[in-house]
């Protein structure tokens, strides 16, 4: 038995253990927690920080978070939403409107935003599923619901129209810089906060995936009619998927609004925000737990590296980034996380052939 096979078999033995997900989770989030330190480590005169700054890390984890939230609905139940900016924006706006106009602590505002977004998600879902929208039609409907909000908010002076909100100071709502205020004076706490967010949504996602709810979700994704025929209440479970996903996406929007200081309809409800929120999940592997996280650690750094490497010609980085997107969906339509199993399948096929030949 070759060394590789030994390792592989050991890994499989480990993988079968009940504690395996816990160990993997701890390892993953341990790594995430250590990243700000790791990027500062000097290896042969090179620091990773030269490529990945803390700000880029934060952005990466934000999109890992939103993609994970998107994944609960679209990856698990197969209802491809192209309008998650709606929920993201609701979270951002609820937080800022409450904190700026009513001095409500942003944590409370965030939860209010989550609930509002969940409600909006239920409306979208109830209408779309009642009328049996599928595929492109469903995607376009969700997009329309998001674009609708962009124009509504732009034209509503009650929500400060196109000017949007500037974040208030902690003292304006009776707090001091720190966790309670949801505001910090440097980036590191913001990083750990969003890693914490990611941990929570990943945990929720894992719980769903490993429960009967997840089973129903997958059944709906694979064959909704068949699922319904064996008694899965698909309408209700799709709604659960939308609501949970919308709720968590809104929390991401709330974080965004606190971290970036200012929001406008054309920043949080932007057309391309819809894409940015879900892209890591599609690149990483929709419907998987690891996909959104791995995807984000590919998408965001690639765009960042392209930007810093090809900065001599303005715009060249977007060409590289575009080519990267095309390449990844062509060569890995099921996401990057499928690479190991594809490699394994290939390996086994090769070995299988050998056995047949013998």
């Amino acid at each position, binding site marked *: 038995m070759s060394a590789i096979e030994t390792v592989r078999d050991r890994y499989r033995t480990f993988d079968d253990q009940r504690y395996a997900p816990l160990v993997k989770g701890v390892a993953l989030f341990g790594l995430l927690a250590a990243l700000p330190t790791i990027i500062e480590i000097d290896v042969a005169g090179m620091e990773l920080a030269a490529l990945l700054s803390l*700000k880029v890390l934060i952005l990466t984890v934000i999109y890992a978070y939103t993609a994970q939230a998107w994944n609960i609905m679209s990856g698990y139940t197969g209802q491809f939403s192209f309008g998650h900016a709606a929920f993201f924006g609701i979270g951002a706006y609820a937080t800022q409107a409450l904190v700026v106009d009513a001095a409500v602590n942003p944590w409370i505002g965030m939860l209010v935003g989550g609930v509002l977004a969940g409600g909006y998600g239920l409306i979208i879902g109830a209408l779309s599923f009642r009328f049996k929208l599928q595929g492109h039609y469903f995607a376009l409907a969700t997009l329309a619901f998001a674009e609708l909000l962009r124009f509504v908010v732009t034209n509503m002076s009650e929500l400060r129209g*196109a000017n*949007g909100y500037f974040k208030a100071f902690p003292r304006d709502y009776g707090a001091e810089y720190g966790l309670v205020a949801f505001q910090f004076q440097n980036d590191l706490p913001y990083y750990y906060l969003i890693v914490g967010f990611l941990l929570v949504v990943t945990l929720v996602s894992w719980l769903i995936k490993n429960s009967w709810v997840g089973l129903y979700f997958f059944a709906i994704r694979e064959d909704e009619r068949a699922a319904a025929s064996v008694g899965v209440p698909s309408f209700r479970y799709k709604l659960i998927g939308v609501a949970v996903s919308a709720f968590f996406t809104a929390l991401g929007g709330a974080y965004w609004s606190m971290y970036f200081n200012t929001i406008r309809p054309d920043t949080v409800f932007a057309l391309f925000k819809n894409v940015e929120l879900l892209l890591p999940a599609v690149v990483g592997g929709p419907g998987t737990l690891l996909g959104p996280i791995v995807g984000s650690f590919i998408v965001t750094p690639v765009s960042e590296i392209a930007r810093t490497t090809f900065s001599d010609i303005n715009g060249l980085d977007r060409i590289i980034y575009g080519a990267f997107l095309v390449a990844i969906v062509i060569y890995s339509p099921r996401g990057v996380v499928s690479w190991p199993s594809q490699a394994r399948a290939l390996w086994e096929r090769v070995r299988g052939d050998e056995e047949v030949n013998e």
Partner: protein
Amino acid sequence: MGKTLKSSTSNRRRFLKATGASVAALTLAGCASDDAGNGGGDSGGDSGGDSGGSGGDTGTTTGTPEQSVDEVIIGSNHPLSGSLAATGVGMSNAIKLAAMRKNEEGGIESLDGAEVTVIEGDNQGAQELGGQVSEELLSEGAHVLTGCYSSPVTTAATQVAERQGVPFVISIAAADNILQGRDFNYVYRPQPPARRLASDYADLVPSVIRDGGGTIDTAGLFYINNSYGQAIRDSLREFLPEQNVEIVEETAIEFGASNANTQVSRLRSADPDTIIATTYVAGGVLLAQALQDQDYRPPYLTASASATFTDDDAVSDIGEFANGVLDNNYALNPTVDKTAEVRSQFLDNYDQEFSASVGMAYTAAEVIIQAVEEAGSVEPDDINEALKGLSYEDHISAMGAIEFDDQGENVNALGPVNQVQDLSVKVVYPEEYAEADPQV
């Protein structure tokens, strides 16, 4: 990522970008190679070439491990690609030009002729890159920052400067609350923000018209429906009634709209004494087009903070019809010789229009250079102190001495009145900056 760097590098922290404006000048000459051929007699090319040999070599190969006082690095954080790039590139070029001119004069005097270098970062007009690019520019050694044109991006960018205690002089960013009520200690804005521009409109334009014997009792607003358009609209609503001008109609145009027919129909049926346009270049062109198509023109066609009627290209695109338009916007000061000089140098070097926005960025860079000159140091806090006490008169913008208040706003910021006369944009009011009399 700085544009002055020729070879790319994986470690921007250690590997300082090309130092010395000589290299910058060479790169510029490269960019504007068309002009270098015929307009190369310009002294900038020569002096850049002279010192370029040695400066360029040491700059790109060794870099400087520590901040040394033989160069001052300005970090320019602007949208160099994406939908805002048309203006952003011009603004960044203006900042480079300001550095080049200073170096031609012998550099920063108080630092024994230290050269001014500009390193550029492209924020792509994206909010999430505003802070990131600021950090990159700082880690590349920038002593002071400027940017960013888009207000949300500027907010993110200034936040970084404030936290790190590095001065940030805003080139352009219109939103009032970037500075107001933010408690910033390191951020400054020479430019009049939206509210100031609108109040200047209300103060100046009606009196120009009335002084000329005209009547202006009613107005119709035509604005772009984004934050900048709405900010001006809100302020005009506040200030115009104080000058006895009633707003009888408001109509908005969407960014990227294909025409302004409906909006003009609406304005036409309200038939106000003046239409006040607040748009980017494209929106104003559409307005002019639709007005002509419907054979309508109010007694006074005016604009507040509109890019269209201070943009020579747009004015010539519109043609005849643009003549007579009164517009208040930040403007270049035509009464000083330096303006024409800078303008012609800019045109020679960059084959781009020296618009009011570009001119404002140029002024921001001069403010920075002047502050460094007065500080005699590249320490951020020294520069910051100098900015606080600054009173800079020798600039090319049509406004008084640039002095900052506690919030960092320029107390003498001004949006004077321009008029299109014979297809060229002329400052007509207040008189101290006027190059022509208003024709009412």
